[in-house]
């Protein structure tokens, strides 16, 4: 019996996926495999390079979030030299980083994840994209989205020297500062972004939260996974993207602890599977129990939702209000409904915009002491930042000249590789059963499960390029290929 | 190295000293191995590392650069530039897995025909000891690489 199932490829995520779905005799899902088909080997070929080049080398891991790698690399390089950059440098970096968050979260919500809700899962594929969103919500929103991205990139260019792949962070600080004129412009754009973030939350409120069908969808079981969560927090356990400790909470919301960058090895381990080039990180102390959730499985996620779960709140007032509303609405911490990640992302968007303004109005931001010359002999160092798609860890070892001898990277989306696989399987199980008439919208829900993580395989495949052709292959119990659906994006 | 390996080598000479040294070696009928094929430049200062990389990547097993002795450059001091280029080039090709000894800098005045012949003989021996370079981009290698490719395809990575 070969049941033909038509399924559209998963689209609108930065990178691609290859999904193998195996059916049993009854035509139910026996197992699914989500594969990452490529490898680049940065950890290998960064060895031998001078450490000050890592911020620009690792940029090229991902063109979608080069800023995250630039920051993590710069912080790791600081650590290698045991040098503490001047306050101005740190603030410049965080300011650039906040602006980056605004563009990145905006892009995802409006172009990638958002359409699922705004248009509705049942909407025709052709409409489930940014253009559909513009049609439904109105043309001016399109202008705003473009504006938000433009502003973010402008700040990145002013501080980082370039729109894509910034180049100004070096061990001990920055190659240059900003002047008052630039600061004023940055502040202006920041204030606009705060309004934009609130505007976006309003849209989400009336289109999604205002719609019982969507709410049920979010709160429903299909997209729910009880797992561990991690996220970077400041000294008050509030969400921070640039610096702090990584907070780890269990599926009950109990904080297992917080680890400093150089302690990541005690907390995180990675598993290798022969059928994919990408490794599966998990909580070392809890251990690898396979693709399952719960207290006893080391599987964790690192997403906007995870960060909200792992923190005690947001460091800026407006974002904090929404943080509280978020958990009230969804029934307290921790929230396991992965689709809520879209909402969490917008709350982070607001936080990033507020932080942007805070830093742009900080007196030290225009200071001219933006670099400290390292004096210590370089040895080993870890740098961690919170990338939009998950905690980003760079770990370097160097010789006495500061030339790399070993490199270890645990990158954004990689953290969520296991959860994504689980979500896909769960979605597939609940959607593909013998006799199910699979409709377009229904199957898009598989994609939604996937998309809530905003997976970026440019990053995840730091061991390989941004390209990941998605292929969904459905094979029946006799090993007959029922259907192959490919998408090379 | 297996016997019978006859390296192919390129030699760059200075029009004023080493090329004339080669002339002198000829007129004095000094015999030396035929493996090195000379190219005449006006000065060792004309030596562009691109030439060396081109030769190595196109099938040469070794490259010899010859010029006037330090302080005797026909153009006063250009041979020092050649020397510095070769020193830096050697460091780079070492990282590329090429023995730096495959590139050799030799000073030979117009009067040193025998010296030049001697240096060429030594260099040929040194390269024979190192064995063929067989750079993958060289024509003869291309076929081989394709075969390797096939193997990879068949055997799981």
């Amino acid at each position, binding site marked *: 019996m070969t049941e033909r199932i038509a399924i559209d490829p998963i689209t609108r995520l930065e990178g691609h996926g290859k999904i193998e779905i195996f059916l049993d005799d009854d035509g139910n899902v026996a197992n699914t495999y989500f594969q990452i*088909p490529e490898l680049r080997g940065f950890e290998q070929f960064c060895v031998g390079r001078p450490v000050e080049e890592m911020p620009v080398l690792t940029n090229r891991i991902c063109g979608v979030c080069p800023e995250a790698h630039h920051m993590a690399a710069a912080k790791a390089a600081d650590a290698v030299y045991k040098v503490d950059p001047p306050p101005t440098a740190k603030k410049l970096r965080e300011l650039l980083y906040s602006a980056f968050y605004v563009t990145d979260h905006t892009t995802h919500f409006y172009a990638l994840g958002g359409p699922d809700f705004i248009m509705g899962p049942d909407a025709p594929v052709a409409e489930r994209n940014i253009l559909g969103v513009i049609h439904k919500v109105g043309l001016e929103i399109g202008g705003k989205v473009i504006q938000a*991205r433009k502003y973010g990139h402008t700040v990145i260019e002013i501080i980082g020297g370039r729109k894509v792949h910034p180049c100004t962070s070096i061990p001990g600080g920055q190659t240059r500062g900003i002047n008052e004129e630039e600061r004023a412009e940055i502040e202006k754009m920041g204030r606009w972004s705060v309004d934009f973030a609130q505007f976006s939350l309003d849209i989400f409120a009336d289109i999604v939260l205002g719609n019982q069908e969507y709410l049920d969808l979010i709160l429903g079981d299909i997209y729910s996974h009880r797992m561990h969560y991690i996220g970077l927090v400041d000294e008050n356990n509030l969400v921070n993207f640039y610096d702090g400790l990584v907070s780890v909470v269990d599926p009950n919301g109990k904080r297992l602890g917080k680890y400093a960058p150089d302690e990541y*090895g005690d907390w995180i381990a990675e598993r*290798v599977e022969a059928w994919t080039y990408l490794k599966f990180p998990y909580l070392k102390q809890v251990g690898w129990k396979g693709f399952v959730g719960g207290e006893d499985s080391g599987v964790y996620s690192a997403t906007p939702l995870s960060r909200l779960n792992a923190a005690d709140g947001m460091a800026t007032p407006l974002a904090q209000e929404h943080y509280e509303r978020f958990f009230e609405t969804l029934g307290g911490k921790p929230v396991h409904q992965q689709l809520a990640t879209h909402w969490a992302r917008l709350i982070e968007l607001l936080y990033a915009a507020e932080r942007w303004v805070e830093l742009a109005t900080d007196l030290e931001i225009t200071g001219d002491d933006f670099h400290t010359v390292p004096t210590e002999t370089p040895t080993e160092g870890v740098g961690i930042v919170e990338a939009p798609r998950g905690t980003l860890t760079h770990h370097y070892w160097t010789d006495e000249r500061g030339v790399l001898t070993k490199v270890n990277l645990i990158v954004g989306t990689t953290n969520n590789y296991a959860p994504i696989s689980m979500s896909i399987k769960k979605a597939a199980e609940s959607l593909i059963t013998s006799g199910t008439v699979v409709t377009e919208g229904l199957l898009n829900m598989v994609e939604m499960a996937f998309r809530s993580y905003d997976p970026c395989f440019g990053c995840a495949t730091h061991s390989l390029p941004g390209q990941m052709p998605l292929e969904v292959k459905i094979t029946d119990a006799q090993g007959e290929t029922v259907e192959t659906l490919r998408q090379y994006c | 190295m297996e016997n019978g390996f006859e390296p192919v080598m390129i030699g760059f000479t200075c029009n004023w000293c080493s090329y004339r040294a080669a002339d002198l070696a000829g007129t004095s009928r000094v015999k030396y191995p035929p493996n090195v094929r000379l190219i005449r430049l006006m000065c060792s200062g004309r030596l562009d590392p691109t030439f060396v990389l081109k030769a190595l990547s196109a099938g040469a097993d070794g490259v010899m650069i010859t010029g006037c002795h330090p302080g005797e450059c026909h153009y006063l001091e250009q041979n020092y530039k050649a020397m510095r280029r070769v020193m830096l080039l050697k460091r780079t090709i070492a990282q590329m897995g090429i023995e730096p000894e495959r590139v050799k800098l030799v000073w030979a005045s117009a009067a040193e025909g025998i010296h030049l012949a001697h240096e060429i003989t030594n260099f040929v021996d040194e390269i024979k000891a190192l064995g063929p370079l067989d750079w993958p981009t060289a024509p003869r290698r291309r076929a081989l690489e394709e075969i390797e490719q096939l193997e990879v395809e068949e055997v799981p990575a």
Partner: protein
Amino acid sequence: MTENGKPKFAMYWAASCGGCEIAVLNIHEAILDVDANFEIVFWPVAMDAKYKDVEAMEDGEIFLTLFNGGIRNAENEHLAHLMRQKSQLLIAFGSCATEGCIPGLANLSTSEQIFETVYQGPSTENDDSVRPQYMTQMPEGIIEIPIFCPTLRTLQDVVDVDYYIPGCPPESHQIAAVIGLVISVLNGEAELPPKGSTIGVGDSTVCDECPRERDVKRIKQFTRIQELEQIDPDLCLLEQGILCMGPATASGCDSRCPIAGAPCIGCYGPPVGVLDQGARMMTALASVIDSRDPEEIETILDGIVDPAGSFYKFSMAHSLLKAARPSENGR
């Protein structure tokens, strides 16, 4: 040509980071010209599209394809051939496709070394030394992943390329200019440059666009940027001892990095007409090193801690040597 008479446009990413796509999105308004003048038939990052649709096309049905990313695995190579077959004009877009870019540095290592490093990494628990297999027998059946090629290759190494647009990523204004050119060609207002040309670059090198003051070059020592007390905001970085690739890198980027106080790292590749970017930088630097004493020269050269990595950071895969040779020390 299509029913609506518009020529078809495609953009594809092979082994790339996605930065090229972002750069194209950053041409903002100009993107509308693309929409107005072309029918976008295939552009994964921006729209739904199906691989089988491309397969179904006539050869040469696509007028213009921007192909970014290097050729890292069998799948990339397959796609390169497909896009070549279906496109009239195939443009190698961005550093990866034109010269290999940073991922090309992998050519300093063997596949084995890369696998060893990645899959036995410090935080990796892999006592059984599991390695990804291109075919794996799972209980439910066999699953595959594309084979990892021995070296990273550029687009021109696997298919015939019409034009090259370098840059990591290409500057948006350059992209807009190229698109403008193609459009005016379509309207019969301009001629296409000779096949094989590098487009979207300047005639000269980064120094040409760099506003920094420069003097006669004499290098006594190289300095690592983090060691500089104060980076002089106005003086040539090379004259400050920083290894800046500007002199040997094609212009066109508006010299962004040097203006930002960071050395040029060479992402725009060799200037037009230059065979090997690294060789040109080596010869230039060695020429102006201010010493005749071999010992002193060696000491000065020690200041360049990673010659191959510095001179070929982006163009390794497109250099004369293309890749290092396997040997005991490293590759």
